[in-house]
């Protein structure tokens, strides 16, 4: 009982931030605090670290490629004596599996992994007081988001974020597309030359399109789909399946697909466009908005090296290191102070819209779909990630 009383206001505050950061204008999931505040998720009670002790001499990290590099981890080892052992993971599912082994202290979790980790008791709440660099400079849109803040406890230290953009080949697609309709509608002029992301979470992209084009479905959050809404999204995906040239799961494959001419338009990341090195490829955030991803450090509930892990989270939250990670990976940094460090940093922030909350207002960050509707509806059961996976496999079947 005592737990609940303390949690409700905190959840409401977190939900308000979700609304501010995620929802776009009128179709926000309702202004009443009660709806999202009702999102009480039963999570295991894992204690958080009370005070910082001596470093253990090492820290084991599961991370996306480019998040842990000698360029900044060597200096960390020099300063703290903690040797950094890195394990690169390719997908969110892999990260969840690796974290469950208990062999790792930290993970750079995306929103579609974090809720699963929290609910599974695999990660511990974070004592942000032990992380001085986690402060006012963290961009608004990344504070207290639903995917890393549950029942008022913070489970993640933001690293960076990015949107899934609509990328197109200007040699074929001569007019800048303003809508995602070029990749969804059967009569698209680019039918047969379209690429789509090869993962169940891509269903949310269909849902974002449906939010704008079929309002009668009543979708207010692409990660809260009841069975009718999921079926509508799957129908749209099946329609798209007929005009898709290729699904991409591997970033390198997506780049060769665009460069080799197999694909001329489709979903992409800003960093992939940059990596392709082709000036003919351009990206745009269409009027319907888009999905996106946001990554955060999370600490294992079985961490053997909690002190080094906290030191790492603090170290990487500094404007310099956070910015270095963001520039290396190609994303918007979580720490806005980085953008004022140099001209190069400012240019990077500009390119990736780091502090442009207007831009990210239309971006729905990946969140694990769960049975409790994250848009606050209580009269229906939403579809969970397993159902999404099954549904996704029927799209290509």
């Amino acid at each position, binding site marked *: 009982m005592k737990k609940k009383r303390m949690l409700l206001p905190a959840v409401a505050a977190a939900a308000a931030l979700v609304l501010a950061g995620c929802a776009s204008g009128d179709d926000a999931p309702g202004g009443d605090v009660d709806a999202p505040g009702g999102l009480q998720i039963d999570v295991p009670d894992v204690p958080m670290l009370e005070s910082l002790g001596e470093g253990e001499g090492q820290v084991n990290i599961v991370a996306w490629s480019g998040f842990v590099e000698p360029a900044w981890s060597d200096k960390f080892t020099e300063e703290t004596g903690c040797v950094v052992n890195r394990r690169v993971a390719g997908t969110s*599912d892999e990260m969840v599996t690796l974290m469950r082994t208990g062999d790792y202290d930290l993970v750079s979790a995306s929103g579609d992994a974090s809720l*699963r980790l929290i609910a599974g008791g695999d990660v511990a709440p974070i004592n942000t007081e032990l992380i001085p660099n986690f402060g006012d400079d963290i961009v608004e849109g990344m504070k207290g988001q639903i995917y890393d803040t549950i029942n008022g406890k913070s489970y993640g230290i933001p690293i960076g974020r990015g949107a899934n953009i609509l990328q197109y080949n200007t040699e074929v697609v001569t007019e800048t597309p303003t809508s995602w309709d070029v990749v969804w509608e059967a009569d698209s002029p680019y039918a047969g030359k379209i690429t789509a992301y090869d993962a169940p979470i891509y269903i949310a992209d269909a849902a974002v399109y449906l939010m704008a084009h079929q309002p009668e479905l009543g979708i207010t959050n692409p990660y809260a789909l009841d069975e009718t809404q999921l079926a509508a999204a799957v129908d749209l995906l099946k329609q798209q399946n007929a005009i898709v040239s290729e699904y991409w799961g*591997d970033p390198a494959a997506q780049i060769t697909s665009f460069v080799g001419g197999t694909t001329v338009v489709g979903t992409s990341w800003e960093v992939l466009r940059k990596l392709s090195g082709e000036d003919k490829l351009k990206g745009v955030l269409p009027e319907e908005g888009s999905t996106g991803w946001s990554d955060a450090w999370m600490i294992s509930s079985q961490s053997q090296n909690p002190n080094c892990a906290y030191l790492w989270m603090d170290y990487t939250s500094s404007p310099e290191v956070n910015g270095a990670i963001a520039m290396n990976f190609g994303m918007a940094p979580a720490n806005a102070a980085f953008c004022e460090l140099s001209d190069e940093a400012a240019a990077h922030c500009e390119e990736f819209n780091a502090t442009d909350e207007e831009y990210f207002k239309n971006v729905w960050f990946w969140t694990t779909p769960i049975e409790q509707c994250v848009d606050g509806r209580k009269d229906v059961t939403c579809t969970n990630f397993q159902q999404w996976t099954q549904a996704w496999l029927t799209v290509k079947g």
Partner: protein
Amino acid sequence: MTTTAPARVDRSSTAGTRPLSTMLYRRPRLRLAGLLAIPMVWLVGVYIFSLAMMLVTAFWVTDPFTSKVKPGFTLDNFASIFTTPAYLATSLRTLGIALAVTVVCALFAVPLGIFMAKIASPWLRGVLAVAITLPLWAGYLVKILAMRITFTEEGFFNWALAPLGITGPGFSIVTVILTLTYLWFPYMAVPVYTAIRQIPVNLFDASADMGAKSWTTIRTVVLPLIKPALLAGSIFTFSLSLGDFIAARFVGGSTQMIGSIIASNINLNPPMAAAFSVVPIVFVLLYLFAVRKSGALRNL
């Protein structure tokens, strides 16, 4: 006298210092157990045990939220293979791909084998043998990516055939079959070539003397004699194709295979993945059963 005494001493000292070999010599069963212990531990402990564990998992349930596996008993995972049209279609498509790869490999292997074994000069034979087996030295992923570059829209295939007005299959099920044929061809070509080499030349002469044309000779003389080799090769090409999904992912466009479904479920819903992994096992067992029925395995 003086020579036998040290010899006797020697023998007794040998027996004294090698009790293990003496014991093994006297007990054949222990000898057998010692010989088989390590391979059996590997086969039973690692291979069969993990397979059995996987099959057991297929009956377990997954927590829908945390996707943690909990022991239980449900047949839902197996049922969904049959009740979900997409799953059934994917299973049958994979079966079709595996059979197509096997047929294409055999169609390439027989003429090539005859040419290499009976017509080519020793020097050319050596070159061809190297050419067939050399791709085995290259990485699996490298070969698939090479096929990806070949068949991309502005790739080698379209470029080379553009003067003839032919455009390639792009990334589709056809490309998957071609890629898998490329990957597994040596497993078919090598046994077929070896079998054809063992056919005496005078059988060809006898056939020709009796008025058989080359096709008749192949059909009535060569094929019956190399049937065991063809079937042995086909077991490789068939079962390896059934399990593959990387080719579908990189050159398949929107092609989905059994492996794609297993890979999608392996982290989120391991019981479903385990249930689905039974499908290729069943296909291979049915295939082996059909092969055995034909009597070909007796000659292996």
